[in-house]
């Protein structure tokens, strides 16, 4: 008897290092039972949503999809993924805090796959005294101090070519300064004073000549690893990759040097494509992933990220990778990088905001004015008000 053949699409599969481990993890599922065989599909980050959505819209697509929160809401909205309430009913899962974002309109359509928090990563060797800055002023000062001789104090993204990464970095500043893209009622607050403060801070860094302008994320992360960048605020996945790919690199982590501890969060969900012809097998896989030992393996292979359920890390691991604790502690302060209440419209709002921020960075436009513009444009164009 042949096994049912399923496909599972995830960006992670195409990452060096983590991809191989994740494939091995899926293989474990394949070995664990006799009915289904899951084939991993690696789709690069840049075209993931477009590719998978085109396929799903066309009535096909992978059976299982790991998708970013931003895509998750769109998929839920168009009923392209299956509800999972019935499947998980009665299961005794100890979900992590951000699992709440998976519930839309009282129903669940996916389980968290990877939760990644943001903290400050730094190269102690490049910082004076090896100490991380504790607040924004210190941060600015030590970034400046570290800059020189081919070394940059800090790195982040500020290009439309990396719009999504830019958005993530921007979220950290805005959230860190206490801003949010919308209020509790789902009204846009793009020009809120706190948001403007975050943008202003973003601009301050930009103007301080401490960042390798134009280096894309892949490059400056590589530079970090080559000890040419002193600090960056980045997510647990990145830290995981560093520890995997550059074991000799002695880096450390600290809470982000912003007034509040709130930071963005990469939230990805594991979902079942509504077009699947192998519903039962797909559901079996989801149940399998939620089993504690599999969750444990997953958390480990993902690096500094968390998974759907709460998994304690081993003491040895914590000792070996002290930065894990910083990430884990950050979890309670993490906020998804979405416009809450307007999740489906996030891409458009994101585009509007980023363009305005770019104008601030490159065109010298006043942050307040820029964000006012953003608010106005978003209201009229996206919300048609």
């Amino acid at each position, binding site marked *: 008897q042949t096994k049912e053949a399923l*496909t599972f699409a995830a960006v992670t599969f195409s990452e060096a290092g983590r991809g191989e481990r994740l494939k091995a993890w899926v293989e474990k599922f394949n070995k664990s039972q006799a009915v289904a065989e899951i084939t991993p599909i690696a789709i690069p980050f840049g075209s993931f949503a477009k590719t998978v959505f085109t396929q799903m819209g066309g009535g096909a697509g992978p059976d299982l999809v790991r998708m970013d929160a931003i895509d998750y809401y769109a998929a839920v909205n168009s009923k392209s993924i299956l509800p999972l309430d019935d499947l998980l009913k009665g299961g005794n899962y100890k979900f992590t805090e951000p699992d709440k974002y998976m519930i839309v309109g009282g129903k669940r359509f996916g389980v968290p796959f990877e939760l990644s928090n943001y903290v400050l990563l730094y190269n102690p060797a490049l910082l004076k005294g090896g100490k991380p800055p504790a607040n924004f002023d210190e941060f600015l000062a030590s970034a400046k101090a570290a800059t020189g001789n081919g070394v940059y104090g800090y790195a982040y993204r500020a290009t439309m070519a990396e719009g999504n990464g830019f958005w993530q970095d921007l979220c950290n500043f805005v959230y860190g300064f206490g801003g949010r893209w919308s209020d509790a009622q789902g009204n846009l607050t793009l020009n809120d004073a706190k948001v403007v403060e975050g943008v202003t801070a973003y601009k301050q860094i930009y103007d301080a000549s401490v960042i390798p302008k134009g280096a894309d994320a*892949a490059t400056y992360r590589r530079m970090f690893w080559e000890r040419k960048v002193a600090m960056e605020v980045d997510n647990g996945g990145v830290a995981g990759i560093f520890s995997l*790919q550059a074991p000799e690199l002695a880096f450390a982590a600290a809470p982000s040097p912003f007034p509040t501890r709130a930071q963005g969060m990469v939230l990805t969900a594991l979902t079942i494509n509504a077009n699947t012809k192998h519903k039962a097998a797909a559901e079996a896989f989801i149940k399998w992933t939620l089993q504690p030992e599999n969750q444990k393996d997953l958390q480990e292979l993902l690096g500094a990220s968390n998974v759907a359920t709460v998994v304690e890390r081993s003491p040895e691991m914590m000792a070996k990778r002290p930065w894990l604790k910083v990430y884990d502690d950050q979890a309670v302060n993490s906020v998804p990088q979405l416009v809450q209440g307007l999740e489906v419209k996030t891409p458009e709002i994101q585009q509007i905001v980023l363009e305005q921020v770019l104008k601030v960075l490159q065109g010298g436009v006043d942050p307040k004015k820029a964000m006012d513009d953003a608010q106005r444009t978003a209201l009229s164009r996206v919300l048609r008000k």
Partner: protein
Amino acid sequence: MSRTLSWSHALRMILVLALLGVAAFPIYWMLVTSLTSSSDLFAPKPHLLPDWSQAAVYGHAFSATAVATWLKNSAIVAFGTAALSIVLAIFPAYVLSRYRMRAVAILGVALFVTQMLPEAMLVVPLYAIFGQLGLLNSLTGLILANTAFTVPVITLILKGAVDGVPIDIEEAAGIDGCSRLGIVLTMVLPLVAPSLAAAAVIAFFHGWNEYVFAQTLISDQGLQTASVGLAGFVGELSTPMHTVMAIGLMYTLPAVIFYLFVQRYVVSGMTAGSVKG
């Protein structure tokens, strides 16, 4: 006179060399980048010459990635696209060249219009159609999709070439008892051979390079083409620059080499089309 001649000749040669430099530099730079150690890559001064001690990156690219499979798939798609395009294009090219009637004029206009459609616009409806036809996830499907975009321009090139085939020859063949189909196959086809080569090259490049459809219509890893494979390296978290450049070069060179072999026919093939007066 001979002095001015040699001066202008020298100037010409300098310009030619400059032109070649401009044309080849990025490819050379790919080679250099792929063969620079990663610490040197991020050095304040660029290395202008390849560091051959790094050549292992090529072996690594082969062993660690599916680049061989990608190139094979790209080759299949490229040759398939070229072949199918020509098979499909030769008859309408003949019709466009030899018949004057309304339906033919409409066909000509339609061919132009199809050149204007961006792949990105058609990919969604096409995906649905391919799903219905069971063509998803197959190189055949990819060939079919690519051909839809190459056929129009190839038809127009071949039309120009057929214009250059003397009608006498066709009439002679007709009198000798050859059918229309026979005329196209045994007379026109061999006589427009250089243009076929030119057309094949255009279709080949299109198939070899195509990205949007290859990305969308194929999800099976084993069927990925090189463009998708290469783009897949542009990671969010890290881009292994050497490997990317090594694969980029391995992806570029076959097309360049292929072109070196056929370029003679391409120029004469295009000539056949353009010198129709």
